[in-house]
């Protein structure tokens, strides 16, 4: 399965982004082949509907779980419609690689 993690930049040593709709990048971690891919959030500076748009990006990427600081009401509605699990993490000092390591060591993808 694919897990999205909101990221402040486009590499594994980037720090975790607490924002969902206005995260700089989405890191898509594939638990099958352990690959990662960074998708730029083109709507980071949009006037309105950033969360709605980010949810659309996540849905289209075939992600089943998203890890971010929090989710706004419109993003939440949209992710719920597609049964995408939302995981909240409030530590923005963590790097993307440390979060992925944690996911691997727990082996808790289900």
């Amino acid at each position: 399965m694919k897990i999205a993690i909101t990221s402040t930049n486009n590499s594994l040593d980037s720090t975790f982004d607490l924002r969902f709709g206005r995260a700089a990048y989405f890191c898509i971690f594939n638990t099958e082949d352990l690959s990662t891919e960074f998708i730029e959030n083109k709507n980071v500076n949009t006037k309105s509907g950033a969360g709605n748009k980010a949810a659309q990006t996540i849905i289209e990427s075939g992600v089943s779980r998203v890890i971010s600081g929090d989710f706004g009401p419109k993003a939440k509605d949209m992710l719920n419609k597609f049964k995408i699990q939302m995981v909240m993490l409030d530590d923005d000092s963590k790097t993307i690689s440390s979060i992925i390591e944690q996911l691997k060591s727990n082996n808790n993808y289900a």
Partner: protein
Amino acid sequence: MPIKIAVASGKGGTGKTTVTVTLFHYIKENITSKVQIADCDVEEPNSSIFFDDLKPIESKEVLQMIPSINTDRCSFCKKCVDYCEFNATVVIPGVGFAEVNSALCHSCGACLYACPEDALTEKSHAIGQLIKFGNNQETPLIEGKLKVGSAMQTMVINHLVNDDWLNGDIILYDAPPGTSCSVVSTVSQANYIILVTEPTPFGLHDLKLMIELVRKLNKPFGVIINKADKGFEETNTYLMSEGIEILAEIPFRVDYASSYAQGSILKNIPGDINAAYSKLISNLKNKWVHYA
């Protein structure tokens, strides 16, 4: 044509509603009985609490037309998504999902124009209401009230100020605080703008923002300094250096403030406040002649 006067401030709590309601009273006594208030502070309208003798007698819904997408017709081409300035449309081709988020939609109609399949139709959604307050003889107050959860303040205000319930000779717009879209919607439709400020650093800061706004809109305006005897001279100095007219300086009176708190500002108006308003009325009378 009615004369439309907006009472605005920038900073909240300077006395917009107090000035609107009191001015209403003095206009009625001295200029015309056909004066009405449009409470444009649609997120928190409160002018009505100062009129014991008025009751809500009629209301009508303000409707916003929001498109909905018929997924049987939709080819999931995403043209409507590209056209939407507000990111309200979500189309996900793989799963046959297409929807317009009503909370984000501004009813601009661009998606209807964009769709090559004619898959969108507009449906009406209630976003607020207009409430007419009156008694047996007259209907001097119309209030706009936004529905909780809607962000379309400007649409409710536009419906309010253009409604035919407002048919007096002089209409006073009680504007919302701030300098954002809802304030622009209110003051841009007025002939003359009264800016109410209080002599404090915060009051002056927001007054300057408001002056910048009304100058951009090219509207004639003047300033009322409310609670004027608080000893902050910078406001007067600034207005004089900019050549801006001070319409009135209304002193602060504890007993008047407590009447306000009890919802009865029109009873027992103190002598010096009465003098300030009487002077203001004769000044405005000369000014407004040009707008009638």
